[in-house]
């Protein structure tokens, strides 16, 4: 005669795992209520200068009076701490929140570069040889905590600098369903165009607006005479623009002055100058700023 066993739900207590996961998303939603727009900077390919574009864009937007935050979602290769000129120091925690680092220009920043020991790779506590099983979940959790647990305050824009590849865009969009858009960064080469096309296609497929395409390293500016000469072959940005009916919103040359300013964490000072590359960054910021202003008018934070 079979035993009559009661069901799990007839007994008291339980792990409540479903509710715990739901509450995690509620924390993200609640935190982002005070942010008018979240925009992801993506490329799909590494080495195209995406983080530099993010840093310059954030600085230019902050210089225009907008309240800007930056999430460095490249957890394994964070570079925005240096590019934005932030000195890692203890981040105050209070009332369930972590204060972001702040740049001289007032940009709020959260990056794994603030949390991991200098010169060390991001490593997780995990049994040797088996970390691949849950490393993805831990990284997703870290991105969620960057969004949910940081005291971002009232922001006009939160820029999220995505790592190469397309996976983190999906994770971000799952956490932030009303992403205001993506900015796709490419260099002119066909290989870059192929990789960035996948990101744009994914963005479109998920219903995320592509704000525009940034053609980075489109020529190289001579540090002595200022003339822009050829650098890469190809015209990836124009081909992507035609294929996806998306605008090219900036053409930025490889510029020693810009690179030097970023290395020194002095983009704000560089933006106060008058050269042509700076004007292109400011124009890019104005384009993105219009998207932000539209999002604010739409009352995302209402």
């Amino acid at each position, binding site marked *: 005669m079979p035993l009559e066993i009661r069901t799990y739900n007839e007994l008291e207590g339980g792990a409540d795992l479903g509710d715990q996961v739901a509450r995690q998303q509620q924390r993200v939603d609640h935190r982002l209520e005070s942010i008018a727009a979240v925009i992801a900077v993506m490329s799909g390919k590494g080495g195209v200068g995406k983080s530099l574009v993010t840093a310059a864009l954030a600085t230019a937007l902050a210089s225009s009076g907008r309240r800007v935050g930056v999430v460095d979602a490249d957890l394994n290769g964070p570079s925005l701490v240096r590019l934005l000129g932030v*000195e890692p120091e203890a981040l105050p925690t*209070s009332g369930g929140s972590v204060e972001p680092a702040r740049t001289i220009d007032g940009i709020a920043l959260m990056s794994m570069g603030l*949390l991991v020991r200098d010169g060390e790779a991001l490593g997780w506590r995990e049994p040797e040889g088996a970390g691949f*099983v849950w490393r993805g979940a*831990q990284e997703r959790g870290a991105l969620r905590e960057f969004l949910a647990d940081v005291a971002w305050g009232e922001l006009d824009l939160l820029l999220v600098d995505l790592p190469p590849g397309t996976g983190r865009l999906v994770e971000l969009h799952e956490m932030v369903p009303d992403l205001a858009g993506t900015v796709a960064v490419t260099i002119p080469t066909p290989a870059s165009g192929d990789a960035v096309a996948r990101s744009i296609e994914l963005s479109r497929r998920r219903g995320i607006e592509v704000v525009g395409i940034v053609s980075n390293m489109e020529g190289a500016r001579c540090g002595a005479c200022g003339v822009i000469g050829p650098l890469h072959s190809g015209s990836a940005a124009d081909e992507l623009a035609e294929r996806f009916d998306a605008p090219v919103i900036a053409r930025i040359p490889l510029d020693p002055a810009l690179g030097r300013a970023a290395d020194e964490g002095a983009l704000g000072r560089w933006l106060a100058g008058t050269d042509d590359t700076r004007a292109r960054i400011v124009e890019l910021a104005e384009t993105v700023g219009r998207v932000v202003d539209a999002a604010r008018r739409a009352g995302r934070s209402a």
Partner: protein
Amino acid sequence: MKFLCVDCDEQMAFEERQLPGDGTLAAVFRCPACNRMTAMLTNPMETQLVSSLGVKVGGRTVPEAPFEGIRGGVASGRDDAFEDADAAPGGPVRVTWSVEAIERLGNVPTFVRGMVKKIYTEYAKERSIEEITPEIMDRARTDLGLEGM
């Protein structure tokens, strides 16, 4: 996971938790009627997988703390990455920088900026100064003999 004593048809009560090693979590339960005890041994990989999602096996008993997953999971984290700003009065002073002071710090070459900032911050903490301003920087330079920084 719950346990039912089949003989008594009683839900077994949680008795104690142990971490015997290799990542195993041992949860011991006792039947309130017959006192029979049983230990549930978790699969370390499954336990880690669940905790990687940021959820607590057995349910939460305290609210989620900020950066709980990062603080508990990152093995290469800086020891001084966080500072508890809610620490009891009499604890370390939390030093902030005025906008003018930050701008002035921006004039310091990048490769020594961190060290210089630390010197000024320590100076302020030792004197219970809560905000570093250009005037405080001037005073520190004089007091510490740091002309040129």
